[in-house]
């Protein structure tokens, strides 16, 4: 248990002259669920996208399961097969059926044979409760179903870590529950998860730890009960006040 699943030290990221991440240190133990919350523009999605190098860090070090991703000579494609990513906008391959969405990377990247890839795909489709959609095309599915297929697609690579980038933000409210349910089940099964989310209730119930980010820094971190239930920092308090009670009239008025 000495080696962390994800270890980020001194991570910096700038877009041109805009500094988005200004020095982030995060350690995620195996089997932990860490939720990242914070206002938009705080850099939380950028942080997540650095963990599988979709964004190239400007400085700092990222180690996932003992592989240093920030090493310029790293085989990033191989490393990414161990890191599942779920996007806000699902990003299912629109020209492929659900089954082929789940099989294509298994076949072409992991070089699994068709029989094995299909078995893995069907098993994961069952896990997200969509066995009946195996031959559907993505545009025939609701947003919630598409997102669950996207989760199953990531799981089919047998990842060690799953990254979720606001997985429910593009969904109609009544579809959010299905996706969160699948994520909760994954957490119960012991998957290491890093989740950028606005779902405070989910973070509170499922997360082992919560990070609050603002202005490119981790402002506060700790157990969910503490960060969401009894935030210490003033910026965390005002953010949570606005998120948990959107019609709340602050002391400064609105």
């Amino acid at each position, binding site marked *: 248990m000495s080696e962390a699943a994800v270890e980020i030290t001194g991570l910096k990221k700038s*877009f041109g002259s*805009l500094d*988005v991440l200004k020095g982030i240190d995060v350690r995620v133990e195996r089997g932990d669920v860490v939720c990242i919350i914070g206002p*938009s*523009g*705080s*850099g*939380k*999605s*950028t942080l997540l996208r650095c963990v*599988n190098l*979709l964004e190239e860090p400007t400085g700092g070090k990222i180690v996932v399961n003992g592989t240093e991703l920030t090493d310029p000579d790293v085989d990033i*494609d*191989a*490393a*990414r*097969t161990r*890191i*599942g*990513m779920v*996007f*806000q*906008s*699902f*990003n*299912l*391959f*629109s*020209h492929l059926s659900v089954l082929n969405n789940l099989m*294509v*990377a298994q076949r*072409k*990247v*992991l070089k699994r044979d068709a029989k094995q890839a299909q078995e893995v795909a069907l098993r994961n489709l069952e896990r997200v409760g969509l066995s009946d959609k195996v031959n559907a095309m*993505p*545009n025939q599915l609701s*947003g919630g179903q*598409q997102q669950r297929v*996207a989760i199953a*697609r*990531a799981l089919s*690579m047998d990842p060690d870590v799953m990254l979720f*980038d*606001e997985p429910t*933000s*593009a969904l109609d409210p009544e579809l959010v529950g299905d996706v969160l349910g699948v994520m909760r089940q994954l957490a119960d099964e012991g998957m290491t998860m890093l989740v*950028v989310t606005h779902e405070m209730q989910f973070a509170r119930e499922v997360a082992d730890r919560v990070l609050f980010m603002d202005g490119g820094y981790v402002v506060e971190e700790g157990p969910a009960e503490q960060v969401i239930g009894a935030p210490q920092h003033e910026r965390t308090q005002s953010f949570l006040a606005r998120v948990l009670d959107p019609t709340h009239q602050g002391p400064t008025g609105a």
Partner: protein
Amino acid sequence: MALSKRQRAKAFRAGQYALLVVVAAVLAVVADWGEIQRSFFNLEIAAEMFPNAITVALKNTLVYTALGFAFGLALGLVLALMKLSPVAPYRWLATIYIEFFRGVPALLVFIALSFGVPLAFGLQFDIYSTVMLALGIVGAAYMAETIRAGIQAVPKGQIEAARSLGMSQGRTLLTVVIPQAFRIILPPLTNELILLTKDSSLIYIIGLARDQYELTKFGRETLSRSPSLTPILVVGLCYLLITLPLGHLSRYLERRTGGKKISTPESTGLGVSA
């Protein structure tokens, strides 16, 4: 009593219909129908043209077009990828090629390949190679820009999803980007095929054996024996047999892909946001 605006518009429209009817009636009375039929649609001449119009001329037009389109599509894809390459000289070469061959007449390319190259290099192409190269070289210049636009229209999220699953850049291109790009550009590619169908007539510049005639050459040759517009009208209609269905296909594809080209919300999730 003054007419309302709506009534005036109605009267004006009725007037236009009346004018058309009068003109048609006058033409019908004045025209020499026998003469018109002899010069425009002489059934005897038309009958003589079959079945060769279909079995030779139409068939050859289709074969020539298909050859040129296939070669042009392959070359166009290479040019499109060159235009998107991070290697600057590739981009320059592709740009020069595209600008050059879009800017010169296709006929010039046919002449270059059928007369220029043999004279200069002593290299003689057969008819199929000539038409494939000439149509393909010109078609590729147009198709390259279309394909490039299609590749760039593939949502960025699709590429990110592929890379996140461990696909290399090349694998992503082959497995995700190019298949989706072709779906997007199917309607404009169909239009390109229509243009090539018509440009295949330029092969007339080469001396063709009788069994190599395509539609235009066939019509012209029939015309030289039968002084009537009928042969031209017949081959014209044969072109429509190809181009009208393709046009419909193109519009159908446009309607089908237009509404749901992108199946996922794709406005956010990039860069700095959230």
